[in-house]
């Protein structure tokens, strides 16, 4: 519900003729800019202009942790045509032009998130003061939704901080902390939160007295060389364009459009720039890519509130986490839990040297945050002190949650479960970080299966945003809540999936990887396979992914899947030789590619000998892509039909966050909808005729095709 006009902004006059305006959107947790808010701003500024006792304005948010979170996305989604979207952009521009040209000086006091339209508003003010609080973050993340900053952001930001720094922020949709924003010159002053209001009001007063804030463009002589003149700028834009194309491979139009809006404005002036910006905004708003990205945004937002079960009981708070297994995975879980959640972590492994190594690996995650200045050295010391370990289960008695990340072998995991049960309390949740083994099988070894659950992380844990949460049929609802809440606290997006071999991610990824192996055997070159799938939109190709995951792990996974689902998961025999010769992938320094000092070097030609083939071109590129994509969509449809994921939404978000399914295609199920079930079934039948039964269309797809419906309503 949009609030009635006047419900968002209030103002009062303080000493020295300063009107303190407070933006506090009623009934909403954060401030956002909607049509109604715009009217309210319009009306308020009208009144402020009329009132002769008002000499200057100091603008604040009434919300505790947000300044303005951005434009109201619901309104944006409702746009049907490019013309409508262009009009929305132009209206916003006009309003902010009014703020920028307001006869009385406006100072903004920024505390909390100042994003998108919020930052564009702040940029239109004459003076900006920000609190140095970690929650104060500024940015223009529009391109992440497939659009561009359309309320003058593409014009004002480069004029304030130079084209280079502005492109840096706009093209990646980066959100920066206040310190960085101050360094590059977005805000004029950085002050402690406690005095933010006083300092902002004082600045407004000074401006009312005729004081002009003076800004020095940062960057010195180099800055002038590149930003200060048209020739330098041409270089900057050329370099930026090249970089954008390399990163998006033409799949994402928004960064290029934003770049054009900035360049056009700097070349032809503010007014022309604004016009171009609005036009481009209009065009982007109705692109399929933007629609998809917005859908994903809504899906992840909804997932943040979803516990994956009906009527979820309140989650228990985890103060202490036990991690069994101090290998790379266990250490990643420990380090991430500390870095993101500030949890007290106790690690356990069989011997102390292993524990020491795991602690050091977990610590690297914290060191990395220090290096990137995300935390101070004092916070770092506090977080490091949360990490400890032993070769016994000491300290597990106080753990509310224990996550095991030991060797992927049923008996080993069952043994660990029994040990943990005897070392911990009766309410302790036991989460298994298994990638394939059904939770039910693990749980049956212990005495309280209702407290056993799956928590499948992806490697490297610190960077991969997904976690699969897998309750067995006996898992208590409260255990699900607690696990989901904890996954979220670790900064992950949890999806609750059904307990079955491979769960969701490995279920749909395995056929894809296996088909890549098949194609290798048929003579497609390794780089070619990777290149084609990167072009399709994956962050890395299937062969590189195999090296990252580890071929030994992959072999285990496919073994379990083959056993559970039969022939269509039959492993490509060629891979066995790779594993036998110790080519486990990146971690071993050699897989399909060579790795020197942790860096990927070229393909190792010896690999072709090992798999008994030489590259000879193989099928046509289009056929290669089709085989890889359809075999995945087919399995995704089948698994979705079995209810492995609770909704297409969970399945798509999982595939995007879990292994980087191209976000602009909306996820495998959304992509299947776009292609159409009937067409997919037809293609699969053709492929099955030619290459074998593994392509036989799933019942789920046939059913959709028959009824002419889709996964999404």
């Amino acid at each position, binding site marked *: 519900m949009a609030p009635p006009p006047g419900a968002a902004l209030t103002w009062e006059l303080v000493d020295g003729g300063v009107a303190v305006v407070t933006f506090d959107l009623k009934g909403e947790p954060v401030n956002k800019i909607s049509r109604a808010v715009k009217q309210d701003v319009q009306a308020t500024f009208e009144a402020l202009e009329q009132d002769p006792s008002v000499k200057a304005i100091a603008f604040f948010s009434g919300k505790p942790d947000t300044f303005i979170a951005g434009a109201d996305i619901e309104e944006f989604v409702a746009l049907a045509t490019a013309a409508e979207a262009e009009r929305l952009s132009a209206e916003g521009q006009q309003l902010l032009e009014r703020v920028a040209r307001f006869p009385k000086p406006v100072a903004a006091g920024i505390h909390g998130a100042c994003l998108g339209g919020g930052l564009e508003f702040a940029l239109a003010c004459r003076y900006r003061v920000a609190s140095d609080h970690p929650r104060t973050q500024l940015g223009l993340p529009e391109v992440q939704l497939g659009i561009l900053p359309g309320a003058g952001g593409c014009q004002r930001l480069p004029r304030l901080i130079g084209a280079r720094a502005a492109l840096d922020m706009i093209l990646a949709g980066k959100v920066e902390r206040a310190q960085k924003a101050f360094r590059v010159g977005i805000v004029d002053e950085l002050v402690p939160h406690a005095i933010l209001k006083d300092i902002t009001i004082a600045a407004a007063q000074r401006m009312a007295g005729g004081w002009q804030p003076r800004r020095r463009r940062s960057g010195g002589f180099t800055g002038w060389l590149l930003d200060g003149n048209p020739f330098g700028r041409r270089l900057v834009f050329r370099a930026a364009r090249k970089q954008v194309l390399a990163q998006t491979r033409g799949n994402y139009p928004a960064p290029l459009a934003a770049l054009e809006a900035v360049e056009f404005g700097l070349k032809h002036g503010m007014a022309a720039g604004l016009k171009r910006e609005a036009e481009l905004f209009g065009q982007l708003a109705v692109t399929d890519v933007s629609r998809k990205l917005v859908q994903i945004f809504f899906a992840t937002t909804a997932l943040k509130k979803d516990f994956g079960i009906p009527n979820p009981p309140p989650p228990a708070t985890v103060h202490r986490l036990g991690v069994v297994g101090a290998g790379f995975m266990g250490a990643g879980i420990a380090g991430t839990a500390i870095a993101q959640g500030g949890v007290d972590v106790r690690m356990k492994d069989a011997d102390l040297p292993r524990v*020491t190594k795991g602690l050091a690996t977990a610590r690297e995650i914290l060191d990395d945050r220090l290096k990137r200045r995300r935390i101070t050295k004092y916070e770092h010391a506090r*977080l490091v002190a949360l990490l*400890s370990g032993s070769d016994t289960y000491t*300290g597990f008695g106080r753990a509310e949650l224990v996550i095991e990340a030991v060797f992927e072998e049923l008996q080993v995991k069952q043994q660990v479960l029994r040990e943990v049960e005897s070392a911990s309390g009766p309410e302790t949740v036991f989460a298994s970080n298994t990638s394939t083994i059904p939770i039910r099988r693990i749980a049956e070894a212990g005495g309280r299966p209702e407290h056993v659950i799956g928590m499948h992380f992806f490697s490297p844990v610190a960077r991969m945003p997904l976690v699969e949460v897998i309750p067995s049929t006996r898992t208590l609802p409260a255990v699900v809540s607690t696990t989901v809440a904890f996954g979220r606290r670790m900064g992950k997006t949890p999806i609750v999936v059904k307990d079955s071999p491979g769960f969701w991610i490995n279920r749909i990824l395995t056929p894809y990887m296996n088909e890549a192996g098949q194609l290798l055997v048929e003579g497609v070159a390794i780089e070619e396979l990777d290149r084609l799938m990167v072009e399709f939109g994956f962050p890395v190709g299937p062969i590189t992914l195999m090296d990252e995951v580890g071929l030994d792990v992959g072999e285990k996974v496919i073994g379990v899947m083959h056993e559970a689902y039969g022939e269509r998961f039959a492993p490509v025999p060629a891979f066995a030789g790779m594993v036998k010769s110790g080519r486990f992938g990146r971690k071993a320094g050699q897989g399909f590619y060579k790795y020197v000092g942790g860096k990927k070097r070229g393909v190792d030609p010896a690999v072709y000998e090992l798999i008994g083939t030489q590259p000879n071109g193989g099928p046509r590129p289009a056929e290669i892509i089709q085989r890889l994509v359809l075999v995945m969509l087919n399995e995704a449809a089948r698994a979705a039909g079995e209810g492995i994921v609770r909704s297409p939404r969970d399945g798509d978000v999982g595939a995007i966050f879990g292994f980087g399914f191209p976000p602009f295609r909306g996820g495998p199920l959304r992509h299947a909808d776009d292609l159409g079930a009937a067409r997919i079934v037809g293609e699969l039948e053709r492929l099955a005729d030619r290459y074998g039964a593994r392509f036989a269309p799933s019942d789920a797809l046939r059913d959709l095709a028959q009824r002419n419906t889709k996964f999404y309503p």
Partner: protein
Amino acid sequence: MPVGNGRRVAIVAGYRTPFCKSGTSLKDARAVDLARFVTRELLERTNLEGADVNAVIFGQVVASALVPNVAREVSLLPQFPKEIPAYSLNRACASSGQAVANAYDEITLGSADVVIAGGVESLSDIPILASRRLADILVEASKAKSLGARLKTFSRIRPRDLVPVSPAIAEPSTGESMGQSAEKMAKENHITREAQDRWALRSHTLAAKGADDGRITAEVVPWLPERSGETVVTADNGIRRDTSLEQMAKLKPVFDRRYGSVTAANSSPLTDGASAVLLMSDAAARALGYTPLAYIRSYAVAAVDPGWQLLQAPIFAVPKALERAGIEWKDLEVIEVHEAFAAQVLSNLKGWAAKGWEINEDIINVMGGSIAIGHPFGATGTRLVTTLSHEMVRRDAKFGLLSICAQGGMGFAMVLERN
């Protein structure tokens, strides 16, 4: 029956890091790291919630200039709420014994229910002092108003001012070093070189046995290095299994090369390490579900003229503690005597024997002592409390005693009891 003025105080648990000769395995750890590590492991091993702790007291003799109150840094471990007050104290080598005594006082008088008392020393991490003249010049320079004035002040620095001064283990009042005092006591109490070497050998032999059969190991928390690839330190590194009287006899006396008898072999080494003990009121221990190892019955501190026999004050502290406990020497079933020097232990024993007490060496330092295990000044007291408590459990002993000699001519004694 409790003898004190209030509630009974239980010793619930105690742990320590390995004790390592200074400059060896623990040389990269700061004292504060050792203290925090042992305390956190104490929590882990007892499954105690940090929030249940009311106070933290640590003993440290040579405090770091950067962390003058090491106890507060311990109580600021994230496993504790920030609101736990903490202080550090210095009663020389009896510091962590005193920390336990203070905890006992607080609990017995009802000021606290659960207290962590510990001690730490890192002689690999000691403050190196600048010369007095250099210090004066630096202070003056920091107050100088102009660059010129500052440079002028600096120009007064002479090379000899730059020689650092390390803190000596000598009595400020007499200038006598610890070793010289031990030498003097050996002569005045007629302790022979051979007797001292025998006591030292006994210390090593019994400590080796205690470590090998797991009694000592159970009190030690392995030290995990921060960087992967460095060695995990699981045991004390001063205990020698390869020494003999013959070998010891070859060593030259350190403090009196002509007529002396105190050698490196019959003295305790400079050591790094930390230890901590968990103390509770009897009621709190019961409420939280812990079975106490032992209870504190009494303690006493005595002091003598440092110019007399510097390490002989235990012969006055022990009778006071026994009197307060309402028991006699013969009631003791196990005794821990801190071994700064074999000459000092044997002097203490002679002093007690002179009171007509019968000395039964079989119940004294049954797992060796500081000569073998090492002596991180601040950490020895809580090591003794821990060892004595566990040994009393093993022997089902009713009364046990610990005695510590300390710099400044002080002696510390504590009586533990079980029932």
